[in-house]
């Protein structure tokens, strides 16, 4: 099953690269949703040679991930884009080709780190999961730092969480189900709160440019 894992992780890496270069918000949301699909299916690839108790856990994780990352998040973000009066483009603060090149450097870093790590599960340590996960984390951070509108920062946050989740799957054997689901719930609440905030920013200010929110005032001058 390692080939399937590798192929889906390669898809994750490529989607992250495309995400760095994407210009339209709706397109970015779609990319994150496909990532969610790949990650939701990821636990199933290792299910054949797991014992029964782990199998149930893997099914639960897969189902919860698919609902939240492939269903709820995209639906929420799409709603914000549709209802908001704002721009439908991401507003990067560095040029997109520069972001892509930085992404390639981050990719090298991710492979280097995964090379240095000693993992409890050597069978999965050979696969692409760890570098892909770390690359997801770096991409998410890069997106949060280099994008100016609130919604693209939320997308960056989801990409970051996707990376964390991929790394977490390697430890599914040792970590209890409750932790996995707890993380998922945390992220869900975070994105939910961010979604509500962005929605309100959108409605009250006609924009969601976080650069313009640095000055806090009670009343307009």
């Amino acid at each position, binding site marked *: 099953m390692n080939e399937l894992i590798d192929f889906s992780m390669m898809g994750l890496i490529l989607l992250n690269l495309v995400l760095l*270069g994407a210009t339209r918000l709706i397109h970015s949301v779609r990319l994150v949703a496909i990532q969610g699909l790949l990650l939701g299916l990821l636990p199933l690839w290792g299910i054949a040679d797991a014992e029964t108790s782990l199998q149930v856990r893997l099914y639960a994780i897969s189902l919860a991930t698919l609902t939240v990352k492939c269903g709820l998040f995209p639906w929420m973000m799409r709603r914000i884009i549709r209802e908001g009066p704002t721009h439908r483009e991401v507003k990067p603060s560095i040029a997109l080709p520069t972001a*892509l090149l930085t992404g*390639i450097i981050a990719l090298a870093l991710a492979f280097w780190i995964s090379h240095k790590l000693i993992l409890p599960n050597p069978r999965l340590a050979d696969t692409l999961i760890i570098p892909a996960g770390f690359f997801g984390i770096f991409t998410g951070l890069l997106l949060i730092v280099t994008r100016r509108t609130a919604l693209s920062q939320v997308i960056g946050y989801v990409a970051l969480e996707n990376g964390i989740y991929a790394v977490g799957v390697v430890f599914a054997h040792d970590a209890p189900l409750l932790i996995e689901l707890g993380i998922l719930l945390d992220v869900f609440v975070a994105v939910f709160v961010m979604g509500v905030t962005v929605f309100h920013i959108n409605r009250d200010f006609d924009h969601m440019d976080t650069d313009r929110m640095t000055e806090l005032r009670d009343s307009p001058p």
Partner: protein
Amino acid sequence: MNLLLPVLKIIPLLGALLAAPLIPGLINKVKAAFAGRRGPPVLQLYFDLFKLIQRGAVFSRTTTSILSAGPLLSLVSAGFVLLFIPWGPLPAPLAFEGDLVLVVALLGLGRFMTVISALDTGSSFEAMGASREVQFAALTEPSLLLILLALARMGNSLSLSTIFTALPPDQFVACGPAILLVGIGLTIALLVENCRIPFDDPNTHLELTMIHEVMVLDHTGPDLALILYGASLKLWIMALLLANLFTAWAAQAGVLPASVLILVALGLVAGLIGTIESITARLRLVKIPQLLIGAGACGILALFLLSR
């Protein structure tokens, strides 16, 4: 067999020289099928070449001999590259360790000749096309080198002739993700090197969007025939590289089955290009560098995958 080998090696070369204009014909047929037209015959490029050769050439008085040297030298460099491209299990007529760097350099030389012959006309319009061509080439060449480097890592050799024979079926599956990545990168390189849609439209005559077509506007008659033929050779070279990559698992089966597979793969590549041209629109000029960097990223990722 050993005595026959030098003769056998020449056959794919001659075949390429004869059959290269078929690929643009096939692509146009696929595009016509998508559009619901009958389309020009598959042999159309042969007719065009034959017609152009019989015509005389007209040169502007501002031009020098570089204008007529450009098409000839770019055709010669494409022909030279062909000498280094193997045909499945058959090694190329010329091969040495490191010939893949020479292949990229020769492709660059061919482009350079086209560019300076465009600049030689003194037309600012053609210079604009030349500038765009060079701008994109500056990104294409490193990407292509990275992709070929990943190939070299895969086959543990720096010679194109031994790379594709070093991938028996079991290793082909093990390298699966890397091969897919190299395939994607090579397809992007093929499209940009041959000025196909998303990067450049071979049919366009809209001034602001032309890249390659604008550079050859001043060439007439036999010179234009040389350019068209050289372009079809270049297309054949890149398509053959792709075909070799995806039929590498059959390289041990013998020359004849591998040849049939490669011919099928070449047809599929033509179909793929035709499909891409039919279902996608041209990219905005500012988006092109991103896709080229993406092709380079595919090469780097494949390199990482292989050297884990």
